[in-house]
């Protein structure tokens, strides 16, 4: 493409140049030739006229017409001579070469000629004769016009044709030269544009090349700088330099990127380990209305090794832990994972927080080649009573938030885990009342710095906690994180921010408005599960052993009845039992989709009858009646609903 347009441009230039040259030279040489030829014709004509005039004086005087005619005829043989005519002194044409007669124009010219002064020179006129052509008429007086006049007519068309043929030859020559020039130009342009095209192609290829790999073989433009030592060569040289510089810089970029990626991926691994180790589903125990638990871990860019965990040791004891591993990055994350796992396994074996810490410490010390350590606060909550037993291993002491009062828990003595096996961990105990909260955190909260290096500090945290009194566990954490972020005001977080909040919602002695429900299948094996649920609910509300017993027996009788008699088919059915405690009355509803059966209509057995008289059945319903204070039956939407009420006795 480059070559084509370059050549076309050159060709146009050549054509225009040649056009101008050809035209000007043609005009110049044509005009020159015309002048020369006319002059030559004129002098030739004059010479002929002179010769006739000289030789015909005698003949004219003697009126020897025939001799004159022969002389005249003889001159017509000469090239360019069209006519010759001789007039006598009176102006009569006595001899001429016109056939058959002398044209009027010639006679008219002769008449004018007679009046002209010659001064010994010939008179030249341009003459046009209709039907014969253009002539150069040369008139010469014979013997000063006394003997007569001679006119010689030279053919001007001959001049024109000679000019044309001369110009034509010149044009042909010019054309040949033009063709040669075009050929030369083509070769020349090709010579210049070939390297340019190579460069262009090479540049096009560059775009598709992988610069991260070394070049395959020598560059296909490597020879150009040596081959053409002109601007094109220079351009090629620049190209080669640019390409190698490009490769080098891409290689450098790739190396730095790889190094950066390695660091990033290590950071990511550490974060992934850490985040996969902490529970993140909230609320964590939706079936436990006794407390509200929320936790967050905002990892720093470089993981700090914070963790938290919470799990039930048994049905009533919730263990919760917060910790901070020394060091950062992958080692901290791994150490944290190990510690968290140790807590999970240890808390199954022993249930006292101080024992848990001692055992975990022992395990960590046993295999702690890296000399890392971890600060831990561990606590166990009895969800029935709100009692919290705790033990601290060198960690920031949590706050207890109780009716607007915020106070750190008392320390129990004992250092971070991992230093030495020989540590005694003490234990402390508090009792949470409904609405009381516990706020556990790591130093990422209090040591978060603003631009001037001021830490968020315990005092700021305590201030905030006082203000946030009464907030839910979730709001407390969100509020704290917001406060810390506001304090940092954009300064990069240097350590993990971890917070666990627990809010105890149940005051067994005052709160009696809760309810639970359990769904059962129509199988006798479900009796045990129902009994357990009833027992949990009753214990939770600290009902007396007698009440618990009565409730369980009544439910046993009802469920046995439903399972044994309510269904005609063998399909699986759902039975729902709901427990509610309000105003010291325990209400239990049992709902089934069996055949309608109102136990209140069943005949009461006569317990005064003798063995012989007594019927076998009816004891179950009788028991239920006797064990409950109120019994109500409803049939709703094809379902039996039996409602039992018991006045509760507290333990």
């Amino acid at each position: 493409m480059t070559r084509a347009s370059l050549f076309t441009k050159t060709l146009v230039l050549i054509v225009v140049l040649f056009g101008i040259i050809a035209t000007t030279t043609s005009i110049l040489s044509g005009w020159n030739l015309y002048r020369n030829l006319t002059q030559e014709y004129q002098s030739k004509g004059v010479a002929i006229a002179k010769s006739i005039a000289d030789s015909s004086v005698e003949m004219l005087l003697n009126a020897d017409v025939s001799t004159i005619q022969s002389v005249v005829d003889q001159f017509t043989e000469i090239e360019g001579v069209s006519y010759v005519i001789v007039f006598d002194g009176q102006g009569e044409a006595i001899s001429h070469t016109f056939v058959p007669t002398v044209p009027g124009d010639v006679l008219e010219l002769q008449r004018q000629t007679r009046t002209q002064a010659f001064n010994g020179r010939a008179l030249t006129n341009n003459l046009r004769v209709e039907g014969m052509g253009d002539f150069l008429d040369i008139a010469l007086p014979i013997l000063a016009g006394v003997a007569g006049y001679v006119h010689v007519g030279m053919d001007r068309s001959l001049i024109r044709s000679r000019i044309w043929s001369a110009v034509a030859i010149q044009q042909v020559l010019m054309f040949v030269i033009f063709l040669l020039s075009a050929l030369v130009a083509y070769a020349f342009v090709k010579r210049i544009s070939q390297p340019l095209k190579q460069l262009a192609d090479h540049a096009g290829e560059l775009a598709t090349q992988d610069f991260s790999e070394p070049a395959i073989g020598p560059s296909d433009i490597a020879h150009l700088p040596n081959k053409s030592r002109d601007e094109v060569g220079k351009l090629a040289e620049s190209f080669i330099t640019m390409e190698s510089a490009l490769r080098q810089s891409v290689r450098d970029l790739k190396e730095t990127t790889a190094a950066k990626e390695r660091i990033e991926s290590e950071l990511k691994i550490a974060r992934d380990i850490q985040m996969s180790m902490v529970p993140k589903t909230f609320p964590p125990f939706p079936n436990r209305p006794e407390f509200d638990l929320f936790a967050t871990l905002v990892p720093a860019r470089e993981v700090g090794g914070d963790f938290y965990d919470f799990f039930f040791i048994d049905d009533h004891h919730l263990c919760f832990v917060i910790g901070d591993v020394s060091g950062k990055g992958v080692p901290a994350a791994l150490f944290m994972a190990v510690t968290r796992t140790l807590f999970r396994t240890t808390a199954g074996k022993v249930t006292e927080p101080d024992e848990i810490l001692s055992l975990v410490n022992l395990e960590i010390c046993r295999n702690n080649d890296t000399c890392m350590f971890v600060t831990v606060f561990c606590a166990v909550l009895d969800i029935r009573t709100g009692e919290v037993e705790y033990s601290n291993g060198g960690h920031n002491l949590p706050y207890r938030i109780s009716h607007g009062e915020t106070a750190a828990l008392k320390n129990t003595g004992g250092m971070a885990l991992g230093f030495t096996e020989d540590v005694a961990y003490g234990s402390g105990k508090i009792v949470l009342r409904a609405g009381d909260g516990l706020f556990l955190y790591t130093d990422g909260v209090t040591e978060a710095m603003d631009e001037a290096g001021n830490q968020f500090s315990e005092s700021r945290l305590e201030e905030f906690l006082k203000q946030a009194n009464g907030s839910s566990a979730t709001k407390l954490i969100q509020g704290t994180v917001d406060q810390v972020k506001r304090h940092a005001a954009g300064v990069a977080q240097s350590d993990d921010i971890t917070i666990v909040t627990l809010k105890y919602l149940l005051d067994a002695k005052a709160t009696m408005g809760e309810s639970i429900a359990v769904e059962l299948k129509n199988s006798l094996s479900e009796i045990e599960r129902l009994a357990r649920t009833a027992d949990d609910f009753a214990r939770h509300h600290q009902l007396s052993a007698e009440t618990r017993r009565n409730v369980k027996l009544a439910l046993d009788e009802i469920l046995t009845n439903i399972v044994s008699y309510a269904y005609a088919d063998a399909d699986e059915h759902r039975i729902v039992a709901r427990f509610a405690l309000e105003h010291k009355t325990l209400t239990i509803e049992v709902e089934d989709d069996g055949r309608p059966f109102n136990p209140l209509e069943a005949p009461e057995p006569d317990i005064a009858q003798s063995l012989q008289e007594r019927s076998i059945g009816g004891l179950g319903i009788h028991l239920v009646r006797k064990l409950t204070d109120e019994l109500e039956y409803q049939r709703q939407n094809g379902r039996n609903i039996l409602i039992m009420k018991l006045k509760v006795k507290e333990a």
Partner: protein
Amino acid sequence: MDIHEERKDGLLVLGLEGRLDAISSKMFEEKVLGMIDGGDTRFVIDLSRLDYVSSAGLRVFLVASKRLVPAGGKVVLCSLQEPVKQVFDIVGFYSVFSIHDSRDEALNTLR
């Protein structure tokens, strides 16, 4: 529920341990009725280790006793725990069964 079986001077002593509910009473019923069919007529049922009884269990005591009447046999119960006692009380079993505080007492009534 576990049943501890003991024979003493032609008497059958059955010690019940655990819970006598709708599930375990079936097994208990089969066992006792099998023994009656096998010719045993005098039973002492020791409830000292029975924690729980529901109407299904009570029913077995009734069925067994009724079955033994024509043969002149008898079921005597002893050593009831407090919760079981309460249930027996509610259903009026004290007026139907011979119930004693100790095993020896129970054995004596049948000798």
